[in-house]
């Protein structure tokens, strides 16, 4: 039984998502029965479609009503519901340490809480969940497993160290996808990496029959740019820029909105689900809305 009392996971958040279910939109591959629709037909209970009877088909699946009505032999086919193997890709780059809200310390805390809450939901419904954390020091991978202890291990892995360096999201995602096969991959990041190869990698994953979700974490300050006085802006992943916010605040907001819209559009083009998560909003409610959408 997954209880959700693990270290590093907000129990309140887990309570909020306890009743939620995470269903893959696409049919998935899996060896065990679960709640996700599978490409495998015949063994499940969910009706899929008809096919003309052929030699070798199980005569028990002949549809007697269609035979009586149309004098044609057709076989009912069923869809299996299978377990999914999900891998969470958690961005622990330095930019994730930015935070201006009161509910969470920074974007990293929001991303970590979201990832573990998602893992909690998936594990509760019998799926297997793995975790890859990527930061400036490289990537660490926990293979997908099910069971009660997996959430603890995932939490431990996420809490190893604070955000640092540039994540190199594209490269890390390539590794994760190679390991994940045709399962579900969930990217939790602010997506501010200069490397945009990760979007191409998602497209390839989708083409192979896998599914991907992208949760983009945004702090209100980087969206609204509420600065007035001239200042020296120090990039958390390097660089420095002295400027007068009043002069370019409007332009920056336009740029940021265009950036988010571009990410959303490219995710959709790559066949991935996308959600823009405001770190100042209640995470439990945000996650539930995403899962129910």
């Amino acid at each position, binding site marked *: 039984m997954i209880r959700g009392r693990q270290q590093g996971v907000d129990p309140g958040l887990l309570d909020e998502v306890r009743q939620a279910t995470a269903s893959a939109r696409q049919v998935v591959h899996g060896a065990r029965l679960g709640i996700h629709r599978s490409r495998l037909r015949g063994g499940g209970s969910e009706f899929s479609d008809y096919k003309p009877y052929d030699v070798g088909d199980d005569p028990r699946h002949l549809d007697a009503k269609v035979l009586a009505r149309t004098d044609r032999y057709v076989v009912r086919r069923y869809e299996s519901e299978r377990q999914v193997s999900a891998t969470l890709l958690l961005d622990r780059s330095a930019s*994730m340490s930015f935070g201006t809200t009161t509910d969470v310390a920074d974007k990293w805390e929001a991303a970590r809480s979201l990832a573990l809450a998602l893992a909690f939901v998936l594990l509760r419904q019998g799926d297997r969940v793995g975790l890859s954390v990527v930061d400036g020091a490289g990537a660490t991978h926990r293979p997908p497993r099910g069971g009660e202890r997996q959430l603890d291990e995932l939490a431990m892995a996420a809490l190893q160290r604070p955000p640092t360096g540039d994540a190199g999201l594209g490269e890390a995602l390539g590794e994760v996808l190679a390991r994940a096969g045709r399962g579900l991959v969930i990217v939790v990041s602010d997506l*501010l990496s*200069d490397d945009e190869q990760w979007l191409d990698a998602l497209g390839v994953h989708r083409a192979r029959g896998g599914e991907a979700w992208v949760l983009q974490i945004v702090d209100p300050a980087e969206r609204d740019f509420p600065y007035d006085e001239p200042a020296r802006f120090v990039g958390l*992943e390097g660089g420095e820029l002295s400027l007068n916010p009043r002069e370019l605040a409007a332009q920056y907001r336009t*740029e940021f909105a265009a950036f988010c819209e571009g990410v959303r559009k490219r995710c959709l083009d790559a066949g991935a689900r996308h959600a823009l998560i405001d770190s100042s909003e209640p995470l439990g409610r945000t996650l539930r809305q995403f899962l129910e959408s």
Partner: protein
Amino acid sequence: MGLELAAPALLGGLALLSLPIVAHLTGYRELAAIGFPSLRLLRASQLKVRRRRRVESWILLLLRLLAVAALVAAFARPSVTWTARALPGLDPTATTLILLDVSASMQADGSVLDRARDDAKSLVEGLDPGTLAAVLAFGGTSTLLEPGLTADRGPVLRALDEVEPGFGATDLDRALRHARQVLDDAGEGRANVFVLSDGTATTLPSVAVWPETVRVHYHDLRPGPLVNRSVSAVSVSSDKASGDLTIEAQVASSDARDDGVVPLKLSLGEGVEVVSDVGLVAGRGTANFTLPLPPEGTAAATLTVPPDGLPADDVRPLSLSGDDELPVLLVSGDGGSNPRDDEVYYLDRALQPGPGSPSRIRPRVVTAEEITQITGGAGDVVFLANVADPRPLAADLRAFVEAGGGLMLSVGSRVDPDLWNEALGGLLPALFTEVKTRGAGTFEKSPTGLSLPPMESDEFRVFRTGGASVFSRVRFGRLIGTEPRLQEDSAVLLRYSDGLPALLERQVGDGRVVLFTSSLDDDWTDLPLRSIYVSLVHQMARGLSGTLALDGAREVEVGGSLPLPLPLADGAEAWVLAPDGQEHPLEPGAAADDGRVSFRQTEQPGHHRLMWKRAGREPQLKALFSVLVPTAESALTAAGRDALLAAVPGLVFHGDGTETGLDAPGEVVRTASLVPGLLGLLVVMLLGEGLLLGRRA
């Protein structure tokens, strides 16, 4: 050489130098460092803002340079000079008076007036600064446009813009006399008078010698030959036997060779239209319309010719009056054995139309005993003469008058004052007191006559030309006195020579009651034997029927005047409702001796309605008359170059591409200052700079 200070102590003020130093030191500060997730978007934003700023900076620089250049150039007061085509005859240095024709014919062929207006503007604009100019708009009348002769171009040009086309005649004589007067009043020696017209004139200038220093230029702006058809005359007659109303309309063309067919349309309102084709012969033709059912009362009608070069006169208004008979019921209260003794014997004889009489009054005599009911309303008249007991008729009479009927009451020996007061108190202008005798009861010995009647009232207006003196010679042996206090809405129309009321009127509902306090036969008075009797009872009958106000001319040409009657009652108002809906009030103070006001606001052709309104009552249509475009104007009568040259020696005629006189088409050198434009540019530059800086802030 030594330096001395008158007030060395004030050098202590140098301590103030510390202020800018302190401000400088405190104003410098280290920029605060702010950690930010990614500088990628900030850099992109900064790059775009810088690019935009760079462009804006160049624009700002350009604006500032232009502003300085404009300011410097404005101080240099630049101007441009060019040669422009000018209306022939223009002398930029001579006082210029422009006579702008606004007659009806200037609306021909689109609008000649627009061209004349443009030419007038070019004349004004071509004058040198300081040269006086004025515009005089003329048609049937002549008006010097405000502000008169002036060197200020603006008001003159604005006045030209505001000139509206008129519908009147082209009185060139009046216009030139007016122009001469204006120049004489201003004491201007050297002047040019420009007549901008279409080559037509209804009144040619009389021969006059103009000073040699004044040159009259006549510009014929007529675009080319023009054919105008119009209704030149209308006559309406009625057939006594059949009752048909016949309208004879004469159609005239300005071209004597016009032999075309003109579909003439008669519109009677409410969608009733009759079309008759009029074949023109030598530019003239006649159409006859016969209406088997003449309109009731007076109706507005129009005669319309198809649209042509001069649309102003295509629709001719006319008012039609049906030849309605005016039924007058004479109720005799004293029949007698001898016809001459009948109470209404004289009345009936006076009102009966004789052979060939134009009178439309049709009297019918009944006795008080015969009649049981009185009906009718507006337009109907009842004479109640010496009826002993009016009570059976009282209710009917009341309803009859309130519905608009006219009631004439006369008394006699059978009238019991108290009984009449009881029965007809609601109708009598004043209650009766008692029968009074004069001269022992016989008029032969009575000294009592009538005072002079009010000639301004409708009923007595006819006596202005004769018969007024007869009133004083009429004698009365008996009469019925009335209470001094009149009933409401009542007035005394005529008094006896001793001051007692002889004729009183009262407005009741929509109708009117007139009371004669003596008899209408020869029992009490010799009035029936007097020459004024017939006219008086006719006027009374017509006055009570409401048809008197419609007497007289019903048509007037644009610019003409028409006498219109005013209501006599206190507090009553009168006005004329023009075709455009404008109301022209008629002021009682402007009335002539006959009580009529000369209406002169006849600028607009069409149907005009004379409206009366008594206090507390609805307005009433009292008369309908038409204002017409002058026939001579419709004929497009050419002024004629030779006639003009003969009438105004020295006149220069410009028209048809030829000029007769001294001047030839010329050019004028125009100069315009660029300073206002440069100052405007400066303002625009400063505004642009302000906008850019504001956007940055």
